């Protein structure tokens, strides 16, 4: 930001801020109920967890301050954590952009259809997200190690493989299974917001676009639809980042915990290991803090990319 040409004294700035605050009293009253609950149930526990990350807290004994010891151990002594970071990146790089683009494309296509069919399809795509963990049992059947499992049988019948692939136990394949299952479940809230956002683009904008010489639906998508739904794109991006970098539960239920030779071990798996099994809360908190910064970094990157939309 450019520096202002004239300097405002500190005293004057305080005065101005106080004046603004006085004017905004009704706004403060409006946000107060939520912000107070938010401070108690979200901000405070997060700050507490950040503090734990500098201690050896184990839930039973009082926490002792150990400085950066947890972080040092994570990066220098814990080779499994390095594997976890690597796996998380592989999964996120595929599931993140893949899920994001797919959910946008589907939302956009739905909007091209007559309203009733579109609504039915919205429900169909979102349904797996509502079914929750029940969906995972299906994946276990599809990717079954058995030679008669859906996928193995299909590959054999197509003549691609002769022998059954151990999808859920073979080190080389478990991460593929986790990626596919995560993509399958990526039609979540981001998708819903895209559907709502596209519907909200004013018809007049399309009419104006048609007058301005937009010829086909692709141009319309880039010059009219996308720029008009930037808030939804941003929302979807944040959702995608948080979900694709915290893949973990799917692997737990499909390939077991820990995964064969840690082949699909993610940061969140590692965090849960220390946070809810070994109860080394200090160490787990340090992992959470690292994951938090990874997400913030990814978020900044995506925001930069999204600014280019429609230009």
């Amino acid at each position, binding site marked *: 930001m450019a520096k202002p040409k004239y300097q405002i004294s500190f005293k004057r700035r305080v005065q101005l801020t106080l004046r603004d605050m006085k004017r905004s009293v009704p706004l403060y009253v409006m946000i107060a109920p939520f912000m107070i609950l938010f401070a108690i149930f979200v901000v405070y526990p997060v700050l507490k967890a950040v503090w734990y990350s500098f201690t050896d807290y184990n839930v039973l004994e009082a926490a002792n301050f150990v400085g950066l010891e947890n972080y040092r151990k994570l990066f220098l002594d814990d080779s499994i954590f390095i594997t976890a970071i690597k796996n998380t990146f592989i999964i996120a790089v595929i599931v993140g952009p893949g899920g994001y683009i797919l959910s946008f494309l589907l939302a956009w296509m739905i909007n091209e259809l007559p309203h009733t069919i579109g609504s039915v399809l919205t429900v169909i795509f979102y349904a797996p997200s509502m*079914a929750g963990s029940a969906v995972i049992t299906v994946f276990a059947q599809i990717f079954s190690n058995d030679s008669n499992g859906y996928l193995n049988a299909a590959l054999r019948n197509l003549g691609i493989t002769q022998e059954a692939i151990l999808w859920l136990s073979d080190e080389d394949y478990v991460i593929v299974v986790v990626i596919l299952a995560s993509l399958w479940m990526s039609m979540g*809230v981001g998708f819903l917001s895209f559907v709502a956002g596209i519907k909200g683009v004013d018809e007049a904008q399309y009419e104006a676009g048609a007058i301005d010489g*937009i010829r086909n639906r692709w141009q319309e998508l880039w010059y009219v639809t996308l720029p008009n739904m930037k808030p939804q794109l941003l929302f979807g991006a944040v959702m995608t980042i948080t979900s694709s970098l915290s893949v973990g539960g799917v692997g737990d239920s499909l390939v077991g915990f820990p995964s064969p030779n840690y082949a699909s071990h993610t940061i969140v798996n590692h965090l849960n290991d220390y946070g809810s099994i070994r109860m080394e809360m200090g160490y787990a908190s340090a992992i959470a803090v690292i994951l938090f910064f990874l997400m913030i970094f990814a978020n900044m990157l995506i925001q930069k990319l999204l600014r280019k939309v429609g230009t």
Partner: protein
Amino acid sequence: METINNLYQKYLKRKKTNDFTPFVKKSQRSFWGNVILGLFLLLMGFTFFFPVIYMVSQSLKPMNEMFIFPPRILVSNPTLDNYRDFVNVLANTVVPVTRSLFNSAFVVVIGSVGHIVIASLCAYPLAKYRFPGSAFCNQLIVYSLMFNATVTMIPNFLTIAGLGMLDTQWAIIIPGFASTLGLYLMKNFMEQIPDSLMEAAQIDGAGYVRIHFTIVMPVVKPALVTAFILVFQSFWTNTGDKFIYTEANKGFAYVVQQLASGKVSGVGSSYAGISSASAVIMFAVPLVVFLIMQNNVVSTMATSGMKE
């Protein structure tokens, strides 16, 4: 050729009568484009819906078909026995099932409605006004979505215990109010409302709260509906097992969870049928809410004409 000005006049006229059928053809849609689109959607729809089809088919199977491997999607002798068993078991629980259903309804209704009111009241000022602290609050809300909940659980438990809410429904409801996901969604949609809409109301003497309920909320109804579905789902599936210990205070989700894992009575594979029926029922409730809400969105789309 109509001039742009003519078109604009025509648009204004239609706007008055709330007629929003497009009168200039949208940019061209080629026939083959539509065909490819349709086929692609069909394929994708089937792929994504497959787990749900599987779930429903599994619940309609008699015991001797349930364990065939590989599982068949088509049921040869469909039966509702699993659902009948499910109802029978629920009818004989120690704590009457009506009690746990009431508990769930209480949590879901108070929680969802309360969350939408409180969070939307907060989202509107954050989306449309700048005041000291607003930028900070906005950042905080985005970042809060990125912190893993496993490690915040213990501080949260201590807070809830300290507030004396343990073993009551409030231990689920009150922290649920503070969920940031719905708020962030609503805020992003509210940013699109043109300022002129609110300025006009302000000149007419309406206060912020009144503008919120009469102008902002109706315009962002699609977002409200989406947020409602999300929060409904999270309350409905919340078993509250970390906070609620008295059987009579537990919700329906908890009972079903116990039933599905065979803990209420009986064990093992004889409960597989009941378990699969319960999965469908747990899924059906948010689905019905979603369908009702979706319908509601259709009727309110006309308000999108308020946008600039």
